[in-house]
């Protein structure tokens, strides 16, 4: 008689033999001690292996697990869109216990070298995300209040016709991959997405999930843009990265549209180098009136646009763009996370600063004409989209600055936020710095910490005599220290030493002084060593 093969034994062990084979195998096993023994050994090996490969980290671990996932999502700027319900202890309701919170903290501390700082950063960001300033209505939102009108407008920029004018084949690829869309066609799109699975199934997540959605996490976040030079070129960062010439927008789009090709050519970048995505939407106030001249900023790059008279805007979201910041005179700033892959129209609701007099005046568009002027002067090129897209792409800086000086004293964002009283322009910098820090901490990226430091410095330049100036100096020093610790090169040590000293000079005593004083020695050591990069 022939013994059972390895394959038959293995399949038999798993109960996976077809019925007829199984009968035959059983009949054989009944009479063959050798095969019974072999089967038993195989089973024993499985059991031992299961023991070796299993590990139970314990209830405590799993109690806190979901909260930590939530935390990670939020750190990646992905959770905000979901944080609709304004609640204090975890917008998703995943945080169940103090124990869970401890874990979150512990996780943050592990992730970042000097965890305390990052936790602060995260918390602040979370507060922002929690603030119910913003609500997102997807286009098919139920017809209610004043938002319906806005939604329609917001959805309007999406029709393929508009896009086709400017699209080339590559662009189509991009859209196809990212195919989710606007609105009532959600189901179809979902199928379409699934249909494309084959095309992109080599990505890490496998065939169920095309590349575009995963890029944010599939690979380490892209390194931060090269440090921004003095002179506040902050808002040009994205352009610089995408297109060194910083040229007109059509070119930029072309370049970005070419990215998927690069991505295909180079598998390592396949997930991160997908093209920028154009998102459109509207900004309106709580009562549904459009907000003109609102700055909509991609936090990760500083690229910004401003909203048109009807509150509409279109903005290119680079692959690493995960957070929008919107600010307008007379309104509280808001952060909006951009779940990657989401293409629906953004309907952003800004909450008025509750300073009755100013708020009312501004809300009705008192400040807008000024921004509008700037917009108009900035919209000389390519009127492709009569909605605000062109002005959107071109207007940023001037308008942003325009916002700053006419801002009424903003209400505190949060009681604990030392930067709440800064002028609005500086607060943009602060928000951007915080987001960069969260990102930097997650990616352990020295250059992103440097980007954050530059943003803090920018905020300091924008408000050098603010009461929070020392808080800013502290943040600068901290970010530079982080950058140095992650990649200890001499230049970073010197920069960190300089900013730390600057802070110490301005804050001659206190716990923060003592803390920062402790940074000096290692920095001095680092600054005297030859760069070994």
């Amino acid at each position, binding site marked *: 008689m022939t013994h059972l093969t390895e394959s038959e034994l293995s399949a038999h062990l798993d109960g996976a033999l077809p019925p007829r084979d199984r009968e035959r195998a059983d009949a054989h096993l009944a009479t063959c001690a050798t095969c019974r023994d072999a089967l038993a050994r195989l089973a024993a090996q*499985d059991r031992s*292996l299961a023991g*070796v490969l299993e590990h139970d980290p314990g209830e405590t671990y799993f109690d806190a697990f979901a909260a930590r996932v939530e935390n*990670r999502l939020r750190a990646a700027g992905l959770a905000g869109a979901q944080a609709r319900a304004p609640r204090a202890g975890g917008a998703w309701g995943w945080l169940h216990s103090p124990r869970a919170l401890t874990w979150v903290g512990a996780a943050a501390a592990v992730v970042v070298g000097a965890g305390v700082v990052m936790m602060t950063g995260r918390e602040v960001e979370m507060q922002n995300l929690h603030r119910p300033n913003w609500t997102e209505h997807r286009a098919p939102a139920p017809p209610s209040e004043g938002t319906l009108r806005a939604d329609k407008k917001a959805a309007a920029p999406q029709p393929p016709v508009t896009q086709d004018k400017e699209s080339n084949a590559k662009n189509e690829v991009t859209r196809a991959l990212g195919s989710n869309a606007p609105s009532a066609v959600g189901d179809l799109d979902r199928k379409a*997405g699934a249909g494309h699975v084959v095309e992109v199934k080599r990505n890490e997540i496998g065939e169920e999930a095309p590349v575009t959605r995963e890029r944010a996490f599939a690979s380490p976040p892209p390194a931060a843009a090269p440090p921004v030079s003095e002179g506040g070129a902050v808002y040009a960062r994205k352009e610089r990265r995408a297109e060194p010439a910083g040229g007109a927008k059509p070119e930029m789009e072309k370049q970005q549209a070419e990215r998927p090709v690069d991505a295909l050519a180079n598998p390592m970048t396949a997930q991160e180098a997908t093209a920028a995505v154009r998102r459109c939407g509207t900004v309106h106030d709580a009562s549904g009136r459009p907000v003109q001249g609102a700055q909509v900023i991609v936090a990760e790059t500083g690229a910004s646009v401003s909203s048109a008279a009807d509150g509409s805007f279109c903005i290119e979201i680079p692959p690493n763009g995960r957070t929008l910041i919107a600010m307008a005179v007379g309104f509280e700033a808001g952060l909006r996370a951009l*779940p990657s892959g989401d293409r629906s129209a953004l309907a952003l609701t800004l909450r008025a600063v509750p300073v009755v007099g100013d708020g009312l005046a501004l809300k009705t568009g008192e400040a807008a004409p000024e921004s509008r002027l700037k917009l108009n002067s900035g919209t000389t090129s390519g009127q492709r989209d009569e909605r605000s897209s062109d002005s959107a792409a071109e207007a940023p800086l001037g308008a942003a600055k325009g916002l700053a000086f006419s801002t009424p004293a903003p209400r505190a964002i949060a009681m604990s936020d030392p930067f709440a009283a800064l002028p609005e322009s500086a607060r943009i910098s602060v928000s951007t710095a915080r987001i960069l820090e969260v990102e930097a901490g997650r990616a352990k990226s020295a250059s992103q910490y440097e980007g954050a430091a530059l943003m803090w410095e920018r905020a300091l330049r924008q408000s050098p005599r603010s009461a929070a100036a020392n808080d800013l100096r502290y943040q600068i020093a901290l970010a530079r220290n982080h950058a140095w610790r992650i990649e200890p090169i001499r230049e970073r040590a010197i920069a960190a030493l300089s900013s730390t000293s600057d802070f110490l000079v301005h804050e001659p005593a206190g716990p923060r002084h003592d803390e920062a004083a402790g940074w000096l020695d290692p920095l001095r050591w680092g600054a005297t060593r030859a760069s070994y990069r």
Partner: protein
Amino acid sequence: MDSAERSKQPLEAGDEAGLIVAAQGGDAAAFGRLVKLYQRAVYRVAYGITRNASDADDLAQETFVRAYQAIRRFRVGEPLHPWLARIAVNLAFSLYRRRKRRPETSLEPLLEAGREFAGTDDPAENVAKRERDRHLAAAFAELTEEHRAVLVLRVVEGMSYDEIARTLGIPGGTVMSRLSRARADLKTRMKARTGESS
């Protein structure tokens, strides 16, 4: 750890589909429930392949982050478990490809401590078993990615061939032959190490 245990999770298939649909619609709490339902399974897969608690933790979290990003493309009605496992497996392998090395070959101290308690009262036997486990872990680490994955999914996760096929994106027949070869390979390596088969 077979599918029977997994099905103990207090959810009917319909409920799960409901949660998925809700999560696809942006209901974060629903997604949170899915996380709670599958966190152990995902952790098991991640740990099985990496055999390192810290990597497993990172991968398990990352798996859900990816899942969150991709949930809208998930086809409702299909099983979620293989879908999540697939993400975890792929993440684990890309992690090691990035690092260009294989998982740890030693057992984690924590794990070993647990083993000691779990063992019998006979110290000599415990020592022998730990020694065998150590060899088994080392032999397992030598296997190819494909073989490790299929063994983890079957032996640790208790997945059916169909689920494994879905997870790895391979035909059912391939699952059968791959598992067989993986087991045989492991057996051979154990023999080489210990002079006995497991």
